[in-house]
């Protein structure tokens, strides 16, 4: 629109409810555009129009409405959507959930202004994610391979080591070339968590290649709705303009969804499941779908959102809808966690949808797909046999079933378990996989081609 004429300033509001206010007698106000609100002491806050009509507008205030009065607030409608000034200088910096620097340094000079809502990538322009990312964690590399341009969330529960795994991935997945960077968005997490990430980036010497957006637990919840959008706009700039490979870590998506529910309730919308708005799926998709690669452009956005499942319930709307959008999920299991297995990545419900096209002959190793499938299938059988053993006792099991129990134990202790700083290559992971599979007779390995069994089966 440009600033050809002075923006009209309005004084006074009609009504304030939670983070939202209603203003009357407005003219020419656009939907989903930025609003600046000056309170009595002249401090400026930012808001966005949620609904506009003839002679009125409904505005959500990103910084919260505390201290705003009906009579003495001054409002300017900026006639543009919420924008973020982006530049390469954002690397190595820390911002709050509204994009203001938190590290005491001045705002970086803007190279471009981006609409934080982003635009949908044309499906014909997308490039199918390729090139696996070796995370050095066998449970991921062998069984749930992460691919550049993928969105693979970690489904966790409170108290489990999801942060540890995310930092391990960020550290070990570091590609040799210069163009790797991390964008980190924290929504409603505690200061300690943010501190942990900061420290771990520092320790591994990648801090100058990390941009952080922190909206901590004590910030207004409404701010959590813009935080991931800022982070993703920054990531899009780095990936698609500056051709970097960007890993976006977003934690904790559950807090984001709760902020959305809070806002929806205040707006009096009709709830769908558990009070979450009917558009939760579309809203989450508008974040997750910003991952990917584009034909003819070098960069990529890989997303690693973290969410804590309320009550460890994977059917809760947040993990459920996330799972429907993302390309798989890494599920952490409380039982393994309690038994001291790190990383406690549950074998069965974890999945990477993109691995199928990116592993196997000519890509990783010829036997990789079948080995992964066989490990899943055998481990599923272990779970059944453990349930049976709990009833009839281990002694009563058939010899084959006992072998399966051995396999299960070895799978968890040898294959899944590894240290926080241990970086296993895919090759090593696969040989350990064969080592544990070879506890079973060859006839049980029906998913694997016979020639591969001949080649890799470990004879005792």
């Amino acid at each position, binding site marked *: 629109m440009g600033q050809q004429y002075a923006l009209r300033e309005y004084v006074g509001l009609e009504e304030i409810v939670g983070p939202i206010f209603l203003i009357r007698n407005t003219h020419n106000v656009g939907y989903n555009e930025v609003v600046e609100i000056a309170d009595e002491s002249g401090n400026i806050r930012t808001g966005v129009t949620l609904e506009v009509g003839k002679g009125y507008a409904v505005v959500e205030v990103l910084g919260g409405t505390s201290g705003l009065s009906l009579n003495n607030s001054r409002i300017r409608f900026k006639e543009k959507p919420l924008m973020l000034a982006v530049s390469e200088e954002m690397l190595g910096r820390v911002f709050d959930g509204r994009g203001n620097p938190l590290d005491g340094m001045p705002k970086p000079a803007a190279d471009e202004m981006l609409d934080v809502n982003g*635009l949908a990538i044309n499906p014909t322009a997308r490039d199918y994610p390729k090139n696996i990312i070796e995370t050095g964690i066998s449970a991921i590399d062998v069984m749930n391979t992460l691919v550049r341009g993928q969105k693979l969330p970690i489904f966790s529960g409170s108290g489990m080591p999801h942060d540890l795994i995310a930092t391990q991935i960020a550290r070990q997945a570091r590609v040799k070339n210069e163009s790797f960077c991390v964008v980190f968005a924290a929504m409603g997490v505690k200061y300690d968590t943010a501190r942990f990430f900061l420290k771990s980036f520092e320790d591994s010497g990648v801090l100058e290649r990390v941009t952080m957006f922190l909206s901590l637990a004590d910030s207004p919840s409404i701010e959590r709705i813009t935080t991931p959008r800022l982070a993703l706009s920054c990531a899009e700039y780095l990936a698609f303009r500056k051709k970097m490979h960007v890993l976006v870590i977003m934690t904790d998506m559950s807090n984001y969804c709760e902020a959305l529910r809070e806002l929806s309730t205040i707006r009096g919308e009709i709830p769908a499941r558990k009070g979450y708005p009917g558009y939760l799926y579309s809203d989450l998709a508008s974040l997750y779908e910003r991952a990917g690669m584009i034909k003819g452009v070098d960069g990529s956005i890989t997303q690693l959102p973290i969410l804590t499942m309320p009550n460890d319930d994977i059917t809760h709307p947040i993990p459920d809808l996330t799972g429907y959008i993302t390309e798989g999920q890494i599920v952490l299991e409380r039982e393994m966690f309690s038994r001291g297995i790190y990383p406690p990545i549950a074998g069965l419900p974890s999945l990477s949808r993109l691995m199928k096209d990116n592993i196997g002959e000519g890509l990783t190793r010829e036997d990789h797909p079948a080995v992964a499938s066989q490990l899943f299938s055998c481990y599923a*059988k272990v779970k059944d046999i453990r349930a049976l053993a709990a009833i009839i006792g281990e002694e009563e099991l058939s010899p084959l079933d006992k072998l399966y129990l051995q396999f299960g134990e070895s799978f968890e202790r040898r294959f899944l378990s590894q240290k926080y700083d241990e970086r296993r290559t895919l090759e090593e992971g696969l040989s350990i996989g064969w080592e544990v599979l070879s506890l079973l007779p060859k006839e049980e390995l029906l998913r694997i081609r016979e020639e591969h069994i001949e080649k890799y089966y470990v004879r005792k």
Partner: protein
Amino acid sequence: MEKVAGKVYRVVGPVVEIEGVSSLRMLDMVEVGGYRLVGEVMRLKGDRAFVQVYEDTTSVKAGDPVYTQGFPLYVELGPGLLGNIYDGIQRPLEVIRQKEGFYIGRGVSVSALDRQRRWHFVPSRAPGEELPAGSCLGEVQETSLIRHRIMLMPETSGKLVWIGGEADYSLEDKVAVVETKDGRQEDVFMLQRWPVRKARPYLERLKLKDPLITGQRVIDTLFPVAKGGCVAVPGGFGTGKTVVQHQLAKWSDAEVVIFVGCGERGNEMTDVLMNFAKLVDPRTQKPLSERTIFIANTSNMPVAAREASIYTGITMAEYYRDMGYNVALMADSTSRWAEALRELSGRLEEMPLEEGFPAYLPSRLAEFYERAGKVRSLDKKEGSITIIASVSPQGGDFSEPVTSHTKRFIRCFWALDRDLANARHYPSISWIDSYSEYLDDIKDWWHDNIDENWLSLRYLMMDLLQKEQRLQQVVKLVGPDVLPQTQRLVLEVCHIFKNTFLQQAAFDKVDTYSSAKKQFLMLKTIVDFYHVSEGLLQKGVTLAEIKGLGVYQDVIRMKLRYTEDDLDSLAGLSARIADSVKELEF
């Protein structure tokens, strides 16, 4: 002609209220504001109209003008649809990319079909002929696979006054002139417009009799669907809905496939697009994209267009059906469509029912599924539409509204099972919860073309699977060792059946497709193995001895050992089983 229909009064997300409306009708298409965002009238009240807008409404203001052309939302039908990829309101995404770059901008105005391209039209009628509505006038070779029949509009009939000779025409060149009953001369083009929410008419519905052969063993053998039928594929996330849809789009023997990606992942559409350009149809050796139309309205594209995408797809399907083709429509996923309906209904402040879905959800579902079927078209051609719709129940709970209402309007149900998916048993179609009501319709096809014992063998195997299910309950409590040998044989045979027959690797080049013949031979071999072993057990042979036979390895690995070119040796496997057990028999 275009005129101003009113002014924006209020904007709430994708719903825009318009005031000063006098001439708008329900479902009329409008264009909103300076960006000319496309929308559709959903409700009229006094001088107000509620419009659902198919694009992002950011920056739309009260007072913005709204334009209308006075028709409902339509699709363009004509040569050039195949191989194309559209968004939910039929805008060609490839053209948008050339115009706008890799993001989809707003208010892009492009025509669905290329006006420049010329098509070689071969007339099949002569002037003077009296033509009923929907008659075929001639043909265009649209792709190397599909001959596109140029038809009169379903409401146009009369005497053919003039028809163009065999030559190249663009979609804007007239190819014929018809004099209608009331004496008007009407120009006929190769391009038709049809409102998406209205089913195209046909002469009569026909009985379903042919199966849609998909090459997926669990589907074709256990839960087949007839050409013209409706299937629902419900499953929680990660149970493999999309892979089932992709496999069917690739391998099913429909002549035209319409793939509607409705509110799903962008990368999945990319996968389909890239794969289909490379993959060749096993029957014709041509790229699959030559028989496929893609509609992509991914989850981050505007929600109202997602609602429309299903109708856009089915209208195209009806158009090819009217030419006499068997069309398969894959809709992935109808739950996202229902959610779009719910979101729009909420914005219109309608009364919600269970889980916030509007009361008209079942009637919308019914309307959609009723557009499937096998018909005799106005031009007396037999064509069919098969709908394969995936459903994404929240939390994997099949009692939720979309799944339970869908079940009322379909006759085939492929329930995807979480436990099977967790064990990476794909396709994870449960043999306990799934069903097909089409068995009786299609059994004659199998009996005439493959083998007269097909249905009885299928029932025998289903019976064993049911038995196995009950035995597994016992095994869970006491272990398998206490069962008698005959019951352990049932477990063993079902184990073989599940692992060699039902489990099918979509990404293995041999296993991805099994012909009807191979499926039958595999089924027969397993049943024969069961009968032979049953006989042996009665003679005192143990199960362990049977499993020690060399031929046992052949049975459990037959899906990969015998390729489609090697079906004769597979047919001989039963005889080899009978031979090799002789050594155990004395």
